[in-house]
């Protein structure tokens, strides 16, 4: 009598590798995606070739082409802006103010805000630009 060893069941495809890959992709997208408050209006930053990398942190003041303001995504009346900025500055004296002005915004709506920020005590004010010509 010849005894035959029962055939081993075919090993199912391991899905551990798939889970690993999906996990890596998930963590990758979670890390590189920066949740940023966007303005309630369209803002296309001006094009510049000599801009520097923008560090994270700070508050963002968006200025639309028509001169409307938004601070960290919330609509802001110009008369309320100094008080709100002062409150932020009291919490963090080294706070960075990022001015994200639309490339078509008139300078009469932009430059006074830079001066106002300086008067309020901001020491780090940057203008947001983009290296892409198309915006």
């Amino acid at each position, binding site marked *: 009598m010849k005894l035959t060893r029962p055939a081993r069941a075919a090993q199912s495809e391991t*899905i551990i590798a*798939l*889970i690993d890959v*999906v*996990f890596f*992709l*998930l963590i990758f*997208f*979670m890390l*590189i*995606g920066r949740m*940023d408050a966007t303005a309630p209006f369209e803002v296309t*930053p*001006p*094009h*510049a*070739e*000599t*801009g*520097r*990398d*923008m560090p994270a942190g700070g508050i963002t003041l968006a200025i639309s082409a028509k001169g409307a303001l938004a601070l960290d995504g919330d609509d802001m009346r110009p008369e309320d802006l100094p008080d709100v900025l002062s409150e932020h500055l009291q919490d963090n004296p080294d706070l960075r103010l*990022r*001015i994200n*002005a*639309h*490339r*078509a*915004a*008139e*300078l*009469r709506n*932009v*430059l*006074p805000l*830079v*001066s106002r*920020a*300086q008067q309020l005590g*901001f*020491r*780090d*004010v*940057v*203008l*947001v*630009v*983009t*290296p*892409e010509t198309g915006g």
Partner: protein
Amino acid sequence: MILKRASRPRALISLVPMIDVMLILLVFFMVTSTYLNLDMIPALRASDGATGPAATPTDTVMIRLGADGVPVIRGRPLSGSELDSLLRSTIAADPLTQVLILPSGAASTQALISVMDKAAQADVQQLRVLRLEVQP
């Protein structure tokens, strides 16, 4: 004699729902992520208000920026390439030349940034933007 069926091994916790959730999260982040390529140009530096400038400018170039965004130096409108070559030759002659930009309030932000961009490319060390204020 009672024959008992061998008890089946207890199934592991199914991984399929977890994979489904992870895939949904992955697709969500891939679809909702927008990639903004943003840089910055400093408008105010901490050293701007410090006393004692690093170097005294020996010469000054004033660039007026009209409402149409055209830079004007000494009454002469300049194209982008002309402004670039003029700034480069000025800085080559005197690296400490101070460049002042006096923009019209009606000029666009892009026009100012373009002039600042040209100045940075020409390696201008001392750049200031002036603003006229109406006294009340």
